[in-house]
């Protein structure tokens, strides 16, 4: 690798890191605004960009968009202390682990289309005149999959066009450039694109985030923190299993873990939410649990555990935990969009054979980001719609509910796809099987809701005369 490529990589890292941090900051503002709007009030709307200068009065109170900046300054200037009773090494390590694992998991998020950034100026040259030059080494980089198919058909031994595993896009090395010609070098969006195990990478690194929680709770030397950390770690590792099972069928159908290949498959066929509604629901539930969001936010709710595992943290270390949580939200909503909601694909509008050029590439980026933001907004809406789960209900849901559904889903899908009972269109049995599995499991769990297991409440008949029923006894009979 030479200096130019290294520079390109570093600049990309810098840009994406800045983008993530900005997203995280504005994610917190979006959460406050949406929470406020759902509760019939306005959110922060005082802090604009005017910095108290009368000259910038135009930006005063600009929808509260300066709020993350103010919060950032607050976190920087707040008193940063470490209590005496903590385990020093792990106390400082925990937020670092939380943030770094979240950011590393974010590294495989390709924001936009799966082709390279097209040059601003179309530098395709005339083939006939070029071929007459003996020094000319003709390398054509395809921009769409149609072109790729044509090139592969013409020359099946083009090593740089050979797909790895079953992904459709070629492994293209960054060409060796002398100097730094942005127009002709191939720059892809995303720090680590083309990772063939994209999905597995995200899951693996997100699992490491449990360390951040556990270390934070343990080192705080505080019983509330410890309980919060225990609950959180149990929740996180319990919900990783349904998360993995939910996407087994998706990966089976695509044949590759490469995220770009999955999005391409959805662009050619239908979105996976149509084929796998149960998988979509399982994944959606599991990512709520992975991000410690309502209704699974028992580890960090205030009513139960003061602050949970981040009780003893102040200022920047607390901000690190918050950044880790929001980054997880962004990464998992990206996964949801890429795996089930079609990525950058909108049927008939933004497709694979979109006209080439920088506008098309930009359109795919915009579509992807719009879908991600709507999933994040859905996260925030659900926070105000559902009650928090009790810990035993939470664990029961993971082990007795979601895992069973995941197993049923996978088994049924593999059987259907292999045997193809009704011939060509048997793929439509998949959503039917999803619904059947859901109903079967819910029917089975109904039997456990017998009167013997439910709480009864007693009301005194005598006091009903006076209006207020006196609740006498609540207990099992």
């Amino acid at each position, binding site marked *: 690798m030479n200096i130019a490529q290294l520079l390109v990589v570093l600049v990309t890292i810098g840009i994406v890191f800045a983008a993530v941090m900005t997203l995280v900051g504005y994610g917190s503002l979006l959460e406050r605004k949406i929470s406020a709007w759902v509760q019939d*009030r306005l959110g922060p709307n005082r802090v604009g960009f005017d910095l108290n200068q009368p000259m910038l009065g135009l930006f005063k109170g600009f929808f509260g968009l300066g709020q993350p900046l103010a919060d950032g300054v607050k976190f920087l200037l707040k008193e940063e202390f470490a209590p005496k009773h903590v385990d020093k090494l792990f106390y400082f390590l925990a937020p670092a682990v939380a943030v770094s694992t979240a950011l590393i998991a974010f590294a495989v998020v390709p924001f936009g289309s799966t082709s390279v950034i097209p040059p601003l100026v179309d530098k395709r040259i005339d083939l006939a005149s070029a071929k007459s030059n003996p020094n000319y080494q003709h390398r054509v980089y395809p921009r769409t999959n149609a072109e790729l198919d044509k090139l592969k058909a013409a020359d099946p031994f083009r090593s740089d066009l050979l797909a790895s595993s079953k992904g459709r896009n070629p492994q293209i090395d960054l060409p060796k450039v002398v100097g730094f010609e942005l127009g002709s070098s191939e720059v892809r969006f995303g720090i680590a694109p083309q990772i063939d195990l994209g999905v597995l990478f995200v899951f693996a690194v997100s699992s490491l985030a449990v360390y951040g929680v556990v270390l934070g709770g343990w080192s705080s030397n505080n019983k509330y923190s410890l309980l919060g950390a225990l609950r959180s770690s149990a929740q996180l590792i319990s919900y990783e299993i349904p998360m993995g099972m939910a996407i087994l069928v998706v990966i089976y159908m695509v044949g590759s873990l490469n995220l770009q290949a999955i999005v391409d498959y959805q662009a050619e066929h239908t979105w996976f939410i149509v084929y796998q509604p149960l998988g979509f629901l399982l994944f959606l539930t599991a990512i709520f649990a992975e991000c410690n969001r309502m209704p699974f936010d028992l580890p960090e709710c205030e009513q139960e555990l003061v602050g949970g595992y981040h009780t003893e943290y102040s200022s920047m270390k607390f901000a690190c935990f918050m950044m880790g949580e929001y980054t997880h939200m962004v990464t998992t909503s990206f996964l949801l969009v890429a795996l089930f909601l079609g990525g950058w694909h909108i049927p008939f509008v933004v497709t694979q054979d979109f006209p080439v050029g920088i506008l098309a590439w930009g359109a795919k980026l915009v579509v992807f980001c719009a879908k991600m933001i709507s999933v994040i907004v859905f996260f925030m809406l659900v926070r105000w719609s559902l009650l928090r789960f009790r810990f035993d209900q939470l664990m029961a849901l993971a082990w007795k509910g979601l895992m069973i559904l995941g197993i049923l889903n996978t088994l049924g899908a593999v059987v259907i796809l292999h045997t193809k009972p009704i011939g060509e269109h048997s793929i439509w049995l998949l959503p039917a099987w999803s619904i059947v599995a859901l109903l079967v499991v819910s029917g089975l769990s109904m039997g456990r809701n017998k009167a013997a297991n439910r709480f009864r409440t007693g*009301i005194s008949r005598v006091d009903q005369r006076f209006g207020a029923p006196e609740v006498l006894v609540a207990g099992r009979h």
Partner: protein
Amino acid sequence: MAIQTKDVIWVEPPKLGILDQLYLPAIAGGVVTALKHLIETTTGMGAEKTQQYPEEKPKLPPHYRGLHRLNRDEEGRVKCVACYMCSTACPAHCIDIVAAPSPWKDREKYPEVFVIDELRCIYCGMCEQACPVDAIELTSVFDLTGMSREQMIFNKEKLLSVFDETVKAGTDPVRTHSGKLGPASEPAESGLTGTSSAQS
């Protein structure tokens, strides 16, 4: 008296059907409700429900009891005659008065020192009700702050200055008699006392 067993009604939670057990329809309903509130707040009347405080002040009811003021009469003198009725009536004992012979001919006494501790005051309005000459009134100033406890102990000059401010701003309390003296301060014209003291 103890509640007897025959008087107790046992209430069971409702049985859930197969679709209810999934909780999915209920969740969807909840999300739709949240979404409805969100859309209504952003596009409908929501933005107007919130009072943007420093720019929009609240509309106070007419008899709102805020900061005290000492009224002046038409000649600009302090109306108070140091009768001690307000400090006697005050439940929080926050009014301190020191009476002195008044320099004006139509009054016997006037308050040399009149101090109200605004932080002890409970803003009940008893002093205003007790005053026979309408000298002390509670205005509608509610957002007064001070940087120290000493700053919030208002002496006579400060209370008179509140009067000047509210008269200038036109925010006299509704009940004020606008500078006219109360019944006990009016000269006895005819009837009971016979002679009338000169007004000067």
